[in-house]
């Protein structure tokens, strides 16, 4: 780790000002991505601006039909929230399956989405549930938020404030963990709203994506047999020492099938 300064922001505007006044600034939320990369000397911010000290940024509320989760809500808080469990149990389960206890007590939903790790779980939730990412300056639909590996639509100084999840009829998240890191080797968020199926897949490619062919087939007929012949092309999927693209494509389908079974059981 290199030397750096820590600032504690008391409101969003201070955080923003601090960011724009620093040479190499970085916001920090749970620090469970940022700090490991700093320790490995892969990133070297001059100024680290702590968002944890901004009051109210971790609130979880239901406004109408929309579940609003503050960016600083930890995975543990989301997993344990009765509001989330009632409104979207799949989301609570997803949060409860991230990393280990220590990670869940520090890592945040905002940090995870801003980071857009290709193997992280939350991007699948945001995209699969059709969430809106609310920042200090605008609202970004999840369909346009995730750009590429570790890249999002956020401006360098833009701060995620909250994530708004609309009500869906049914949702399930299935994760096939990488045996070493236990991030998602493949993670599938499968949701249904007014007969329409939405599927977001994480872990399998450079960034989270929607499985369009499966969505179409399942929107037409929500059953395992409807997707018997549907496949996912391995062409754009990741190959690494843990899984080839072909195996990942296969796993995606297995998880989708299991998701359909779970929702039709």
């Amino acid at each position, binding site marked *: 780790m290199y030397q750096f300064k820590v600032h504690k922001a008391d409101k969003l505007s201070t955080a923003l000002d601090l960011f724009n006044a620093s040479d190499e600034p970085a916001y920090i939320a749970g620090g469970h991505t940022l700090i490991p990369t700093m320790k490995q000397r892969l990133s070297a911010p001059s100024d680290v601006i702590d968002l944890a000290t901004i009051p109210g940024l971790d609130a979880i509320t239901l406004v109408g039909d929309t579940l609003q989760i503050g960016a600083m809500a930890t995975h543990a808080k989301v997993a344990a929230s009765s509001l989330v469990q009632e409104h979207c149990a799949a989301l609570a389960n997803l949060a409860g399956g991230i990393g280990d206890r220590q990670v869940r007590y520090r890592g945040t939903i905002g940090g995870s989405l801003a980071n857009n790790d290709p193997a992280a779980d939350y991007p699948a939730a945001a995209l699969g549930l059709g969430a809106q990412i609310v920042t200090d300056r605008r609202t970004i639909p999840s369909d346009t938020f995730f750009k590429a590996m570790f890249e999002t639509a956020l401006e360098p100084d833009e701060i995620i404030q909250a994530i708004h999840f609309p009500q869906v009829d049914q949702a399930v998240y299935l994760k096939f963990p990488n*045996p*070493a*890191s236990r991030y998602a080797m493949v993670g599938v968020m499968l949701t249904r709203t007014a007969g329409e199926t939405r599927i977001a897949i994480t872990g399998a490619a450079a960034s989270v994506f929607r499985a369009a062919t499966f969505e179409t087939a399942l929107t037409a007929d929500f059953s395992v047999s409807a997707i018997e012949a549907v496949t996912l092309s391995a062409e754009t999927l990741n190959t690494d020492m843990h*899984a080839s693209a072909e*195996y990942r494509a296969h796993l995606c389908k*297995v998880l989708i099938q299991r998701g359909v079974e779970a929702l039709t059981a």
Partner: protein
Amino acid sequence: MSGSLIGKRVLRKEDHRFVSGKGRYTDDIQLVGVTYAAFVRSPYARADIKSFDVSEALAAPGVIAVLTGEEVVKDGLGGLPCGWMIHSKDGSEMRQPHHPVLAADRVNYLGEPVALVIAETQLEAKNAAEMVMVDFEPLTAVVNPATASQAETLYEAVPNNVCYEWELGDEAATDAGLAAAAHITTLQLTNNRLIPNAIEPRAALAEYNSGTDEIILHTTSQNPHLVRLIMTAFVQIAPEHKLRVIAPDVGGGFGSKIFIYSEETALAWAAKKLGLTIKWTAERSESFLTDAHGRDHVSEAQLALSAEGEFLALKVKTIANMGAYLSTFASAVPTYLYGTLLAGQYRTPAIYVEVDSVFTNTAPVDAYRGAGRPEATYLVERIVEKAAAEMGLDPAELRRRNFIGRDQFPYQTPVALEYDTGDYEASLSKALEMADYDTFATRQAEAASRGKLRGIGLSCYIEACGLAPSQVAGALGAGVGLWESGEVRVNPTGSVTVLTGSHSHGQGHETTFAQLVADRLGLPIEDVEVVHGDTGKLDFGLGTYGSRSLAVGGSALSVAADKVVEKGRKIAAHLLRTDVDNIDFDAPVFKMLDSNESKTFQEIAFAAYVNHDYPSDELEPGLAEKAFYDPLNFTYPAGTHICEVEIDPDTGVVEVVQFVAVDDFGTIINPMIVEGQVHGGLAQGIGQALLEQAVYDDTGQLITGSYMDYCMPRADNFPDFKVGMTCTPCTHNPVGAKGCGEAGAIGSPPAVMNAITHALGGIEVDMPATSEKVWRAVQTMRTLKTA
């Protein structure tokens, strides 16, 4: 009272310290005026070093000195030696490239240290290390051991990158056995490369006292005397009596802390050269790169059987990867710790093994929990199980037909070892019973109804522990005898300090050794303190590895305790004005045989130090005795492991649903500690079978350089282990103990892989059985079935 502590589940004395944060590991030690070191490492697997430029680093804040490989050359330091000479088939000596403390002109593996920066703070040292400019010219790396002998030669003195071409056994007799066979089973397999991952990374703290010209090196070592010997006699950083090596609490090693590495050596050298106190603690990524790795074999084997399933011959050819240099004991691992174990528990009359050891541009490979014996067991137990399947025999039955019977000991194998004792049938039948072997088909059918493939696999392992009878080891090329020292020092008040040359890095010696000595002397265990890990306090010792500590180190203490009793009897005779022969020791009391007069142990201890009236020509004051115990043979722990797995055919995920381990470790001092050792060993062995794997890419970059990719087993990867014991005490040491530290890691991998192969209907996969490999095997199985 003697005998009352052996076999008791005494809670570990050291655990209070460990679990309450009071352990004192190398990095915990705080010394005044300490400075910090950071190493500059090669970013390439192989490169020429054109030049060093240290000017920017030297000018950086807090920097005190920068030492490079060039200073090592200037100071004339010796290389890091390998302590075991192996001869090739043609009689020639193994080839050993020079292993520099810091590389000066060529680097040979990723992470090899080339320079060391010393600064006032750790941060300053690390910052400045990045400023050391090394002009590397990358060269093509040789990574794959299977093809290394055909690749570009890495060292002039090592043609074809071959360290040695070793053989053991009778080739003609083995070929005759193959020719006479009714059935031959062949098998190709790899034994995957592993990274040790001790929870405490390597660390060193070197201080130099110019007043006494002494270096004190605190370090993470399993054998501090060996560290001192090699650093002084071979690397020549100081005379032996001017280097004191202290290994305080050590947090795991699994072998990786036996060896003498560049970093610790460089620190001791730099401390003296610069007159400084210097600390270095490896970062986890440095551990991945530079702790000696384990295993890494490619093998093929043939097992010849008669029509009745009698083993006639076993022929094995193995390529072993040594990495870039020969680490301290590397050469012995794939030879005398491997080839000699290929008889397993069986009467196979003819065995022949060839081992080619090769150099590659990867981290050095050396002994890792089991060292050679897991590789041998994996090969033997896989091929035996495969033979059973091919011949349509029950794998337990096939083993039974070939076991060395309990009445056939001592048993001379065709691969040099003479087993002293054992009862293989006893552990097999106990394990079969504990595993409900007979009702497996019911469980398999039930699993099938849930869409799962269930398989069961056996492994009847043997290992050679208690390294080692010095004469045998010497004849086989060991650079040192492998005895152990021990001292039982009775204090005037009757409490006892036990000093041992072996060292604990988590095994609980402070309890087991205290239990042993307290039992012999009839004392409460609280009165016995164990001291280890300090060359300044102890006689020369050989340390802890190869499950030798109790069998060899414990035996030394047992002999020393007997000597204490003998001396005590003399003192009692003197005090009671009688003849020594008239004194009996009924622990803890010295009794006169022909009267009811007696002396307690405490009275004798006190008298030993305070009496004024000893007949000085017959009896010296004091009550402290030492022993150097040299074992007469290896010990041979053995047992049966049975694994049951379930495979999800859709994903290839393997779940270990039952694991039974029945082991014969001879006499057991503390069953709780032994079970803990078994559990840990099983976790590592099952981890090797399913999860762990060190992977380099074609250029020699380490892909598994962190826990993101190197898969460490976690508790939820395992079921509750069912552990059982049988006992045939070792016949040739006074404790009767055989050693238990490695058995779990030795016996379990073939049990797991046999279970997987069974579930897959005979389709083989290599370790680790990742879900993708297993999924692909399921596809193959289905294609074959429908074909």
